[in-house]
């Protein structure tokens, strides 16, 4: 997979390396800002509320 990507990147060696770095960063940013915030509430291992207790606020 990675070898295939490497082969298909255009340009000389340093250009390819730079492009690869950009790809890695882009993947990281998508994960950090889009995927993880969406995933985080679904895998809550840190849930401190005793359930079903939010009494409706008065008024």
């Amino acid at each position: 997979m990675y070898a295939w990507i490497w082969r298909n990147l255009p340009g000389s060696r340093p250009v390819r390396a730079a492009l690869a770095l950009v790809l890695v960063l882009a993947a990281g940013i998508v994960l950090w800002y889009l995927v993880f915030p969406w995933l985080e509430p679904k895998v809550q291992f840190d849930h401190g509320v005793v359930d079903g207790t939010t009494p409706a606020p008065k008024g």
Partner: protein
Amino acid sequence: MRMLIRGLGELCITAGLVLLLFVTYELWGTGRYTQEQQQRLDQELMRSWQAPRPRNVTTEKVRIGSGLAMIRIPKFGPKYRFVVIEGVELSDLRKGPGHYPGSALPGEVGNFVVSGHRTTYSAPFNRVGELGEGDQILIDTRDTQYVYEVTGRKIVQPTAVEVTSPVPMHPGRKPTRRLITLTTCHPKYSAAQRLIVFGELVDEKPRVAPAAAGK
């Protein structure tokens, strides 16, 4: 065949790296969000406390998601302070410890119930397990600092809603004492159980002006 195995290996390594990044996000990234929110809420709260009290209002209503009071626990050092947010929805608890809407307000007869994260989102209640009998929990409001003292703790199932009732463990009974209850997850990094810390009001004094208290 060789291609397949290599592809699988690469996939596994990638998954491992993504997982590592996710753990970093949970334990560190989420905390940055909370710190931003805390800073904002802190400023809002201080501003509203300094402004003159609105007339004809006996009890101030606090909107869900905004700051209600300040919690400090001397045992955790002078830097330990969090704005308590009104509400215990996921989005509220991301900003800091949250007050169960409908439970007593600070200093009131009944039970002032606060829930907080123990490991993610700045982990306000990370060390709550270290609290023992007699340790102080300070709750600052506009005019008053309420001093609670820990009376005990308990580990319960996540469904044990009776810990939040006005008289903990006795739902329906009429409260006569002024109590505080902190809830967080237990054990750390798990949502299997809840750690509950109980306390009772022992003192109230005028709140120290932030100019004298803070640096």
